[in-house]
């Protein structure tokens, strides 16, 4: 049984039974689901996430977390929904990969702390690895609204795993592409050109870096940003149980003093976006 905004006493989040408007396959195992969820779209900030029930029954039981990819508008520009970037990896995401227009999914959100887009004259660089592209369509859109100059460093395994380039170029984003097999853009990891451009840029121009992707990539970006003196914000994607702060399963280590002391905090309510400098990257391991 799904209940929505009528049962909430606060502003957010809401649980809506959202119709699948479109399921756009991107490649084997990747798809974008467009969901009719105006109540969530209206309040969602870039980098926030939703928890989606992938089955009406008891298996899979728990919802799955997804970054809000795009804010979807109708022909008149009204916010009518959101989209999510899905990677088929287990039973739940396989169901979302196979979802059909007209299906209805329980979507809870928006949840978590967002990315805060910087204003000009500061510049924004986004760094995405693979499905880590997920939060950046809405980030780029918010940056474009502010008139902030932006670059997307986007790396994937091969050319066929690079998606939605035109969405970003359409928003005025400069694209720097890399593939591990060299089939598109610069061969190698996305941190290669990032390191080079960081070293080459004038130190007096303010720059904020936003990153999402595999943990080793985000760790490397955090280090590069630290060396260059640029603030880095990352969006983490740990295993989550509830998304509301109830279960304490999605914890990540943050540093609470300079002596190396750390503390585990819930990424659903204290994140998923964190200032990279606050995280203990040595402890942030495969469990995250």
């Amino acid at each position, binding site marked *: *049984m*799904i*209940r*929505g905004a009528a*049962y*909430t*006493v*606060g*502003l*957010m*989040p809401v*649980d809506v039974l959202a119709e699948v408007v479109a399921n756009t396959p991107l490649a084997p195992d990747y798809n974008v689901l467009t969901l009719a969820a105006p109540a969530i779209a209206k309040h969602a900030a870039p980098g926030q996430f939703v928890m989606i*029930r992938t089955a009406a029954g*008891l*298996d*899979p*039981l*728990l*919802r799955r977390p997804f970054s809000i990819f795009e804010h979807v508008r109708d022909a008149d520009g009204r916010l009518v929904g959101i989209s999510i970037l899905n990677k088929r990896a287990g039973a739940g995401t396989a169901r979302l990969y196979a979802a059909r227009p007209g299906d209805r999914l*329980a979507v*809870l959100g928006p949840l978590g702390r967002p990315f805060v887009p910087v204003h000009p004259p500061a510049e924004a660089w986004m760094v995405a690895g693979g499905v880590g592209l997920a939060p950046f369509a809405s980030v780029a859109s918010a940056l474009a609204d502010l008139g902030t100059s932006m670059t997307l460093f986007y790396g994937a395994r091969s050319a066929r795993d690079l998606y939605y380039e035109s969405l970003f170029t359409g928003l005025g984003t400069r694209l720097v592409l890399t593939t591990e097999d060299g089939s598109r853009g610069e061969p190698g990891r996305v941190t290669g050109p990032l390191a080079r451009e960081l070293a080459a840029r004038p130190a007096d121009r303010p720059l904020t870096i936003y990153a999402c992707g595999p943990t080793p990539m985000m760790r490397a970006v955090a280090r590069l940003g630290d060396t260059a003196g640029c603030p880095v914000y990352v969006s983490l994607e*740990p*295993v989550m*149980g*509830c998304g*509301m*702060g*109830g*279960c*304490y*399963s*999605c*914890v*990540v280590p943050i540093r609470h003093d300079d002596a190396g002391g750390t*503390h*585990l905090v819930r990424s659903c*309510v204290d994140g998923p976006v964190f200032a990279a400098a606050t995280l203990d990257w040595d402890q942030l*391991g495969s*469990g*995250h």
Partner: protein
Amino acid sequence: MADLSVRIGALTLRNPFMSASGCFGYGVEYADAIDLASLGAVVVKGLFLEPREGHAPPRIVETPAGMINAIGLQGIGVRRFVAEKMPELRRLGATVIVNVCGTTIDEYCEVSRVLADTEGVAAIELNISCPNIKEGGIQFGCSLAGTHDVVSAVRRVTTLPLFPKLTPNVTDVASFARAAEEAGADAVSLVNTFLAMAIDVETRTPMLSNVMGGLSGPAIRPIAVRMVWECRQAVKLPIIGIGGITSARDALEFFIAGATAVQVGTANFVDPFIWAGLTAGVDAYLDRHGLPRVADLVGQLQIPRKAHV
């Protein structure tokens, strides 16, 4: 509209639905989404005297119709809870039950003393059943003498209603309910999670950093219903039934088996707005069966005489 209020010892709850400890944070996490005062009670996450870090991730793994957790009782400690969370819970009008943990009997007593001096704490649930910590907890809950010792020791330091939460990881849970009753408990909560394990066969590694954890969710419900029924036969104490409740129908099973109230845990992860549907569903059932009060349903299991073949 039927009367959904229930009495557990000296405590009257507006309805029989409570959050299960460890599944609802400190309650305040849900205050933007739901009206905490609309729950029978908010049972908050287990608290020791001092803050506690818990286990390394991964802390949960999903299993068929359930999940296994090994959080390790991460928590802020009872003093910070009283200072930082209780004012907000009082302001929101929540009926607050605090789950109390300890590694020693002295710690159970000390945490309970702090809570006894705190305005707005309605009752104490004694956690003698967490399967995920090495010292204390389940060590007491797996021994009849240990159960008796913890409950009677805490009984001496507070007049707050006292509900030991029992583990199902014993041969005969009813004997533990009896031990709790003899030691002066006001009710028993049952059951905590079932000790369980899941393995990644590709890497041949455990799915949880703690190797083992506690199974919860609909998968355990029939066993929990059976245990409530067994305890109903063994003690006069009110029983708070816990285990895999996802709907009003599930809760009705527990009432009929002998629970006066129930707790909802894992299902709240799936649907944080579950509460309104639970009360509405039970209310509709009571109307349909011509019962004025939910309390009339408790323990009303009808066992037909065996038919002749």
